[in-house]
């Protein structure tokens, strides 16, 4: 994954939590009615909750 170049609107917290460019992640669950996403990422299998709006800042490439 990479980040959109619109850095400034994105909460820094996403990066501070360790969801960095080139990180492999999986969306495990999502709360109903387009609620937050349950994202697992990185070597340490960190888990964070993100809303779709925050997810929009992230450019995703599919891995198999």
């Amino acid at each position, binding site marked *: 994954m990479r980040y959109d170049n619109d850095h400034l609107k994105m909460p820094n917290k996403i990066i501070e*939590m360790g969801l960095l460019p080139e990180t492999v992640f999986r969306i495990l*669950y999502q*709360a109903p009615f387009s609620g937050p996403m349950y994202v697992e990422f990185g*070597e340490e299998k960190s888990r964070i909750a993100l*809303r779709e709006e925050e997810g929009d800042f992230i450019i995703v490439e599919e891995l198999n």
Partner: protein
Amino acid sequence: MQATQKKQVLLVGNPNVGKSTVFNALCNKKQKTGNYAGVTVASHSGFYNYENEEVEVVDLPGSYSIYPSSEDEAIFSKFLIDKQQDYAGVIYILEALSLKRGLLLFQQIQDLGVPMILVVNQIDQAERRGITIDIKKFSEALGIQIIQTNAKEQIGIEEIKKAVLNNNFVKANKQSFETPNEHKDFIQKIMSHKDIDNEYKAWMSLSLGTDLGRIESIIEQMNEPDSKSLVPKRLQVQETVRRYQKVDKILSNVISKKAQFKELLTEKLDKVLVHKFWGYVVFLAILLIIFQCVFFLAEYPMNWIDDFFAWLSAFAGEHLPEGPLNSLISNGIVPGLGGIIVFAPQIGILLYFLYLLEDSGYMARVVFLMDRLLRPFGLNGKSIVPLVSGTACAIPAVISTRNIENLKERLLTILVTPFMTCSARLPVYSIIIGLIISDKSFLGIKYKALVLMGMYLLGFIVALFSAAILNKFIKNKGKTYLVMDLPTYKKPLFGYDFKMVLGKVWDFITGAGKIIFIVSIIIWFLSYFGPKQKPDQLVATNVQLDHSYLAKMGKGIEPVIAPLGYDWKMGVGILTSFVAREVFVGTMSTLYSLDDDAPEGKVIDKMRNDVKPNGEKVFNFATGVSVLLFYAFAMQCVSTLAVVYRETKSWKWTGFQVVMMTGLAYFVSMLAYQILK
């Protein structure tokens, strides 16, 4: 005797790394640990003595970065940077399961030139996941000695104390973050201009940004044309990404993983607990179980307490000399105290469950589940934690809003949390429901229990809808978002939490007890004395209740409360409730026991039989409903107001909350009484 030395150390780390557990193991003090980001919402300090040194440990709120994005993180950064002269060093806690995230903040603090001790907690957990950490290599790469702990088992705590005693705090010999080349010259200029000797501090004076209002001033002072285009946020991102790249390199040499990867408890549990459907079913079921326990399990100890106080009251009545003092103690103070202490089991059970939920890591899942549902009301998923803990007490609930990043969402949560049915309302509800609702049951559930549950629901619904209305009128500053860690589930500390609950319940009893004791005595005095009846008297003593100062005061406010259906005694009860709601019960007990016409009998029976001058019962259905609604909505807690002011730093919003809540209470109670009477 040797003189003791004093030393202050800070306990720092990400949220959920076991910081508070280390704190408890060090200081052996009552303090809440939790597995939900933001339990340590204020900085607490505790003390321990080791050898001949007294050490003060300040437990700072957890943070992910030196750059704050919420109030609790701001408290953290401010303390760390501003108080650098005061503390001997920082004990930094890393969790073995998330080293990467922890090292970001660790290196930022290191670069500030702060001396540190590094602790890696819960290595056993990492090993269970098949992760091996080469501590020796790790220690060399970071240039600092590492202490391994398992704080829950007290392992490694002695080593921390030793390290503090020997002042094994280490300063970094080299800055781990290299200032980007394009800013190097400018940073050098700032350093010489501002007389800063630390390159990272100079960098921070740029990157910390407008939060502290520094960047404009520094850039303007420096009069550097290129620097005008600097955006603090961009600098922060640049720094964070660079740091993580370095951290990755360090960790790749230190961590090794076995091939097999067992599915862990957290993965299994989350399949159900955050499920689109079952997640909500489980959450509702948990709430139902909690309330079932609060109302039915608590019945047994409540009966014992009731019996004990009835006995004590009778005992005091028999053995004390006859007179008004006898009546005050046996019918006023003792039943008043009993009326509060009887609720200790319910409050204790409620708190115990809340602690277990926080401790286990489940609260973060509730935030995840509730975020989408709370957003239409202008709230954040994180608002659910204050709302739920508001059912115990609004004070810690208001403080726990600090980790809500968006200021508007935080303000809304603070404004509506006191609508949640707190434990102080429980005594009032119980006594009024006991007076006006019949003992019958419906499908095996007592009407009384249903009405009580209805009151809880009412509080929640009013909280949500008032948030939705206020949402329309309050301007939004800043962006709303939810970026939240979902910690691994941990077995709650059952015994430890139980101890915490006992402490809190004791605080409640002594706190409420003191107030009720004082209020009872004041009421007794005001009712014992009255305006002079003969010209040569200064005041009249031992007057009829109806001729006392108290009655005069109560009758003075009667025009205001008459539309709500209250007589002057209830008016006095409500007035005294503005100190704290539960005082109502004590005031009523005292008032009714002072009624000389019927000195015998239980207070509740006297209340039931009391009539107004026009022959109407004082506590009939209409006035009962009116009182219930008044207590549900009115802002009647001085301590909560003090905390709201401290958290909002605004008289405007604190005042608004009083007027909004009490105005609503007055209006709704009047409406209900006028319709039902």
